[in-house]
């Protein structure tokens, strides 16, 4: 345990989404390079690395040669942001299970970050179980920042009880081939379920989003806004289904998927649908795929904003409508900053990290 103090700062992965007062948990799936000891099968320590925030705890998930299962149970604390940073350093396939349990009437903030370190062909299967109990509210931000060879499949199983509220924002900053499969069940009345996603892809990257949202109880509101900016030969696929059961009267459900194609060869497919069995509901859905507006571009250029800057402003604006759903101002700002860097083709690494993982 003493050894941690002597790790050069730069060799530690520092996902410094600089959240004041956040509790940070680093979860490694292997031995990070530079650790000065060999056997770290179970680590649970508290250490101050003097980076940006205090690292409360570092978990090391032991694994066998073939694959392993890593489980994280998150019981967020009402006042703080709980940030769990999952760092992949070991190339064998990994299954992970994350459970977020929100007690009745509580207000919770959780950030899940997934990173890969190194140029390995990582493969991750994640199961994220979210249970928002009666009257509780959860603000969950998922940040995906992995290398172009990585494959990541995340299955979200969500259950909302009466008057529960969830805001899920998935930001796919960089990933090789990522699937986010969300199954959300509104089990109690007067619940609110907001599912949002922003995906940025280029090269040969693929981003798939599957959403099934079931309204099983009435007077609930759901909204979905998934937006993608696609460059190079990247592909995105969105399939979204909202089911309103016969019991779910007075449901409001909105769903939108918008894609901005910034290269000729990028492709987006979108398949939103509504299945409604109740008659007193307000529902809408829609999808778009388009390129940047020439008129807007000319207007900006006529003010002296170069074409490159004008395009970045437009893309930031496009992304901004998803990012503004992130309630925490500091986190929102940090994400906007990372998105801007990504759009500019700069590093999207978290500050202070020396690993070239993307």
């Amino acid at each position, binding site marked *: 345990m003493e050894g941690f103090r002597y790790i050069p700062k730069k060799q530690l992965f520092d996902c410094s989404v600089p959240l004041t007062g956040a509790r940070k948990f680093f979860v490694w799936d292997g031995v990070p390079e530079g650790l000065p000891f060999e056997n770290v099968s179970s680590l649970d320590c508290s250490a101050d690395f003097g980076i940006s925030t205090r690292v409360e705890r570092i978990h090391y998930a032991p694994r066998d040669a073939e694959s392993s299962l890593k489980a994280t149970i998150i019981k967020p604390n009402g006042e703080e942001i709980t940030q769990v940073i999952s760092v992949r350093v070991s190339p064998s396939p990994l299954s992970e299970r994350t459970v977020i349990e929100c007690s009745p009437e509580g207000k919770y903030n959780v950030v899940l970050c997934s990173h890969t370190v190194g140029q390995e062909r990582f493969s991750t299967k994640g199961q994220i179980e979210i249970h928002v109990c009666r009257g509780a509210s959860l603000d969950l931000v998922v940040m995906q920042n992995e290398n172009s060879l990585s494959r990541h499949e995340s299955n979200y199983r969500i259950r909302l009880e009466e008057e529960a509220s969830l805001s899920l924002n998935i930001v796919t900053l960089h990933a090789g081939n990522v699937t986010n499969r969300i199954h959300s069940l509104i089990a109690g009345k007067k619940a609110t379920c907001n599912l949002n996603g922003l995906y940025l892809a280029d090269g040969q990257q693929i981003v798939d989003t599957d959403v099934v949202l079931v309204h099983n109880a009435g007077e609930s509101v759901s909204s979905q806004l998934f937006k993608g900016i696609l460059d190079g030969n990247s592909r995105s696929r969105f399939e979204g289904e909202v089911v309103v059961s016969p019991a779910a009267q007075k449901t409001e459900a909105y769903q939108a998927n918008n894609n901005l194609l910034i290269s000729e060869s990028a492709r987006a497919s979108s398949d939103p649908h509504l299945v409604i069995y109740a008659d007193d509901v307000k529902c809408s859905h829609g999808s778009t795929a388009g390129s940047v507006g020439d008129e807007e571009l000319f207007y900006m250029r006529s003010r002296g904003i*170069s074409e490159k800057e004008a395009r970045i402003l437009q893309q930031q604006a496009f992304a901004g409508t998803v990012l503004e759903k992130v309630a925490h101002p500091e986190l929102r700002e940090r994400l906007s900053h990372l998105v801007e860097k990504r759009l500019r083709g700069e590093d999207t690494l978290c500050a202070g990290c020396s690993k070239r993982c993307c």
Partner: protein
Amino acid sequence: MENLLEIKNLHARIGDKEILKGINLVIRPGEVHAIMGRNGSGKSTLSAVLAGNSNYTVTEGSVTYLGQDLLKMSPEERSWAGIFLGFQYPVEIPGVTNVNFMKTAVNEHRRQKNLPPLSAAEYLKMMREKMAYVEMDPSFSSRGVNVGFSGGEKKRNEVFQMAMLSPRLAILDETDSGLDVDALRIVANGVNRLKTAENAFVVITHYQRLLDYIVPDVVHVLYKGRIVKTAGKELAAEVEAHGYEEFE
């Protein structure tokens, strides 16, 4: 004195349709020119061509701005060189705030002059000062560019942007359209405050009323893609009284 702008025999088309059929125009520093004409006479095409809108193709003629071939310059290069187009229909840019938009523009102009970018405080001070020119509420700065602005607010925003960029040559394309008398006066006052002996304005309009506030040195009548008459400010009153028929 050196000419600011010299247009010679300018022909331009959109698609297969020729709209400008040989425009000749010389503008010197300190001058205000008014270009009047009916819908479809080519007024907006002329302004779009001068600002570098790629929807229009120049087929013949030349445009020289401060000794440079303007037609070879990109829209942003024209802006950096001091040309400003006040749009007839200012474009809405959802998600880009006015403050971010203008700050980016001002700092790009500064970068071209090898000046450091303005600090947030310096920018704010400049912005407040220029907003006052057009009696614009500072709350507009945090809104999306032109999003949800009324017609008058959009035009005020154009003049505000002009004030921020202090151009050498400003072309105002029907800045008066859709304005009530009060908004017209505010916009015109803003323009008049920016007039110097160094810069010049081209005011494009259908009507004389704007020219009561922004008094031109020269008035041109554009008809079917050509300037058919050029005279002093009295020409505007003549057009107002008799319409465009006599030029047909």
